[in-house]
């Protein structure tokens, strides 16, 4: 089971490259796709999910070129887009039955699977209600069930926990971890804690290019020794923000506890263990600095 993206690029109207020279090789596991807004994450997922065609480069699934054989991946794909609609007059069972038919599942195993999935996403009690009356979180969960209908070998989920309450978010994280053993899962999100909890590898994208592709431990190691906690009076917070890359602040009785990234510690700051969020910010700021330096040259 292997997904290979080789020098893929996507040019939109107006000559805007959303993705450029992007290469990645994936095997079973959860890939956390991180990057700022407009980095090209959704474009990449749309290309892999065969929603849109790459302008250049190739994407292959188990050796099959998706440009020529898109059904090679569609048959084993589960896709949860960031934005999607539902048919408001259908209930959860009818909606999933429809997609089971579209995905070519036979009736008996589809029925069993739908029952199990509705249990899994905690919608069994409202299975007969029209989707038009579902809340945002419930619609998101029906989308998750839809993505898992065909027992996908490749599961692509774009901001899957958006709109979910904390309990459902935790459940979904666990679900992703359970699923990852024998399939490729691509998880795109801005919620770093979701990636922290599930991802076995991380790909960081910025401005349509791959910044890094590594296990979380490797990213954490790169940030190690560069994260500090510094207690300062509230009045100095603004100046500190100007000077340092700050990943968090907490107000306490003794002042503001600032968590910052810097090559060397400010006076009075103490070193702390890096989190994935620190590592993400460090990696991104290093990349931007390198780009700025390169363009200045």
């Amino acid at each position: 089971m292997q997904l290979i993206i080789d020098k893929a690029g996507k040019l939109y109207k107006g000559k805007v490259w959303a993705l450029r020279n992007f290469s990645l090789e994936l095997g079973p596991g959860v890939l956390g796709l991180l990057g700022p807004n407009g980095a090209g994450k959704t474009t990449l997922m749309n290309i892999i999910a065969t929603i849109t065609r790459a302008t250049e480069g190739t994407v292959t699934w188990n050796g099959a070129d998706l440009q020529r054989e898109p059904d090679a991946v569609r048959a084993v794909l589960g896709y949860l887009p960031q934005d999607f609609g539902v048919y408001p007059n259908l209930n959860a069972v009818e909606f999933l039955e429809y997609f089971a038919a579209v995905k070519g599942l036979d009736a008996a195993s589809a029925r069993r699977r739908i029952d199990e999935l509705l249990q899994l996403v905690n919608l069994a009690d409202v299975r007969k209600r029209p989707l038009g009356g579902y809340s945002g979180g419930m619609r998101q969960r029906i989308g998750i069930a839809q993505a898992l209908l065909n027992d996908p070998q490749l599961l692509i989920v774009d901001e899957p926990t958006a709109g979910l309450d904390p309990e459902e978010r935790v459940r979904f994280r666990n679900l992703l971890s359970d699923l990852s053993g024998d399939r490729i899962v691509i998880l795109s999100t801005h919620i770093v804690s979701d990636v922290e909890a599930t991802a076995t590898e991380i790909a960081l994208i910025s401005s349509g290019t791959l910044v890094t592709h590594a296990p979380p431990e490797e990213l954490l190691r790169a940030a190690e020794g560069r994260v500090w906690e510094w207690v300062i009076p509230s009045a100095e917070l603004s100046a500190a923000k100007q000077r340092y890359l700050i990943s968090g602040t907490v107000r306490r009785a003794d002042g503001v506890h600032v968590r910052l990234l810097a090559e060397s510690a400010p006076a009075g700051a103490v070193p702390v263990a890096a989190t994935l969020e620190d590592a993400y910010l460090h990696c991104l700021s290093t990349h931007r600095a390198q780009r700025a330096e390169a363009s200045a040259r």
Partner: protein
Amino acid sequence: MTRGRALYHLARADFLERVRRYSFLLTLAFAAGLAFLTYSGTISLELGEYRGVYNSAWVGSMMTLVSTTFITLAGFYMVKNTIQRDAQTRVGLVLATTPMSKSLYTLGKALSNFAVLAAMVAVLAGAAAILQLVRAEGGGLEPAKLLAPFVWVALPAMAMTAAIAVLFETLPLLRGGAGNVIYFFAWAAYVGLSGATGVNDYLGLGFFMRNMTGALKLIDPSHREDQFTLQAGPTVHATKTFLWNGVDWTPQVLLGRLQWVAIAMGIAWLAALFFHRFDPARGRARWAARGKKEAPEPEEDRAGANGAPVARAAAGQLTPLVRTAHGSRFARLVVSELRLMLKGRGWWWYLVAAGLFAASLAVPDVQARQAVAACAWLWPVLIWSQMGAREARYDTGKLVFSCAHALDRQLPAVWAAGVVLAVSTGGGLGIRSLMGGDWLGFSAWLAGALFVPSFALALGVWSGSSRLFEALYTLWWYAGPMNHVPGLDFMGMTPARFATVFYVLATLALWIAAYVGRRGKLGYA
């Protein structure tokens, strides 16, 4: 002043959003097409055996009548989506939180509709000048006489159409496909009434009829008012010409025309009373769900919130699927598509469909039976119109099109479901033909049963909307099966040479168009 500025920007933003879409080019192309048909003589204004000399007054008035007759119909369908777009893009939710009043909003939307329709009128006005210069039979170009009918007749008619479109969008029963069909019949009845009575209608039909007929009667007293026709077709009846110098635009006449602008503003204001300001609790979902046993309030997840442990499957416990061949699933997909099409129809829908089926089979009088049979194929128009456009309407495209064989299995399944619907609703006529041994009639009917879903699918795929099919099909149905215009009767009730062959070939062409359109939208084949 602030309200005026808000109104201007509301209309401006909406207008710019529209004109920057490719569909606006189609709008202008439609207007240009009308102009060409008039130029070529396919559309012409005739008073029995007379027509006017092509001077500025006649050409301007004729083009004005072309615009008020055709654009008030087709243009209505083109602009009746402005509030819907705000709902779909969710811009409406933001607008709803501003101090903007409901009347300002509906007025702004009517203004934007008016601007789009006025752009189409402008194309015809430009074409009128060219037509007069090319024909060169009525003296030099007189801009005031040429343009006055557009300003005083066409623009008020567009204002009315723009406001009515907004009103339809705010009324739950009229905002959907039913409203599109109802508008067609209301428009047809109004056109008939205006032409018959000669009243000061907003379309200007009666207004010009009185004026032109009065002038002609001075030359030929035997001329009758009912001979005033805006002729559409290759046959030209007029063999004589007469000189008509136009309408005398007195203050009283102008006031009579301006009253329609005031009425249009009143309609736009009336629409504000029904506009729910994008309140989701009063939106479509709630309305659609009304009457069902379990009223689906937008709700929190009780199953997860009550604190009680709920037995759930773990991901690892999901039953593995047995993978089977794709081809064997087609019939199941057709059934699923058919279920999706029919979902939400009340028992009364099936009752009417069954009644029409039975009546088209059993009514002894031929004319009555044909009328009932025609109705049997108008009844499912709102179901067919969803074909090919449903994924765009409900934003499920990414889910459906990322499935395997979306092009070579799902698209044919949609079409097959549409054919099943055609056969099952209009089957009475087919069975009757078979029982009578009328094989030609049966084959013509069968060609129609294949043609209608293909027409719906192609238009749905290409337009991404149900409105185009609803408008064109209703018009076609009205001319063909209902009024028996030879060649246009796709049900085969009106004898016409090669009609069956034509509809079979059209089915094929439309199928290819749907396939190519969907293929283009998929990005991948």
